[in-house]
């Protein structure tokens, strides 16, 4: 997005790194922030990230999507998807990355890469547009990735109450559904803590006795 701020590719090369005191890099962990377009994913990442959210672009080809019609037309479907992310240092050696996943159904192929190694996912929902989060919910259910559903209260009012939303999304009782404000740091923190609680239950059950 804001590409003007990055000086790394400037024509005058910076001096090469000084290797005199090698430092051990932090151990990275990640949580996925998913949901439909414009639902507040980047807002939530920005609210809690210690760096201004960055955008990376992934190039996807027809082969990656699995749609390859040989012969007639033979137009390659190539899509560039943008993904915003941020990070925060949890302690001296642990760093949490938050990846805002493109939520549209047609970007599903990208989620395998995102979901691999993730602690869990926060699915952000706009109570006026519940359908937009279906692809994300379906994906995480099938992938067995722990997730929680945060309903972003844009103007402090929800179009449906939380139980109606749970029913509409056919979520089981183990998936927490709660209201939060993607603009507020503490609210986003609490939303992530809910995701981590689900992840912890999941991990504890999975661990061999």
């Amino acid at each position: 997005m804001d590409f003007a701020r990055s000086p790394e590719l400037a024509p005058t090369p910076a001096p090469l790194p000084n290797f005199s005191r090698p430092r051990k890099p932090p151990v990275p962990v990640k949580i996925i922030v998913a949901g439909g377009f414009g639902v507040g994913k980047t807002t939530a990442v920005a609210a809690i990230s210690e760096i201004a959210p960055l955008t990376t672009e992934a190039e996807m080809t027809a082969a990656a999507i699995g749609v390859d019609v040989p012969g007639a037309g033979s137009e390659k479907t190539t899509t560039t998807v943008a993904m915003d992310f941020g990070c925060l240092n949890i302690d001296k050696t642990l760093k949490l990355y938050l990846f805002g996943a493109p939520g549209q159904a047609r970007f599903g192929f990208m989620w395998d890469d995102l979901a691999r190694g993730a602690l869990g996912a926060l699915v952000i929902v706009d109570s006026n547009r519940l359908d937009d989060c279906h692809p994300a919910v379906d994906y995480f259910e099938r992938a067995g990735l722990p997730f929680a559903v945060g309903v972003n209260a844009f103007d402090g009012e929800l179009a449906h109450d939380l139980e109606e939303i749970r029913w509409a999304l056919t979520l089981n009782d183990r998936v927490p559904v709660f209201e939060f404000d993607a603009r507020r740091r503490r609210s986003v923190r609490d939303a992530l803590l809910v995701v981590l609680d689900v992840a912890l239950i999941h991990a504890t059950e999975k661990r061999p006795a």
Partner: protein
Amino acid sequence: MAPVTDPEQEYTDRDDAEQSRLRPFVLTAGRVAAHDPDIDLHTQVTARPHHHPVDTLTREQQSIVRLCAEAVSVAEISARLHLHLGVTKILVGDLRAAGFLEVHVQDAVSPHDPETILRVIHGLRTFT
């Protein structure tokens, strides 16, 4: 005006779009899927002390080595250098093979480890 079905005209119309699509993979000599599957979005990368002259590297490769003076994730390299994620993974894999970068795949923790999740919970609670 030529009909859109004219392949040449269509190509010209799309020239810019095609170039911006193809250019990233020119940097990888056309490879699109040859990266190490262990290299993840959040995998940390650091520069290694190297004995080969960096001026044998391309501009993009040199930029990556410089950026990795401090530990950075693959996603950060991609974002800060405006390289597509797939291209970044391939270039990072190449630079690792050539001895310029250390890719800390062995430092990855299991997302199913309750101890790790508890550490994240405790750390996150201190954010106010």
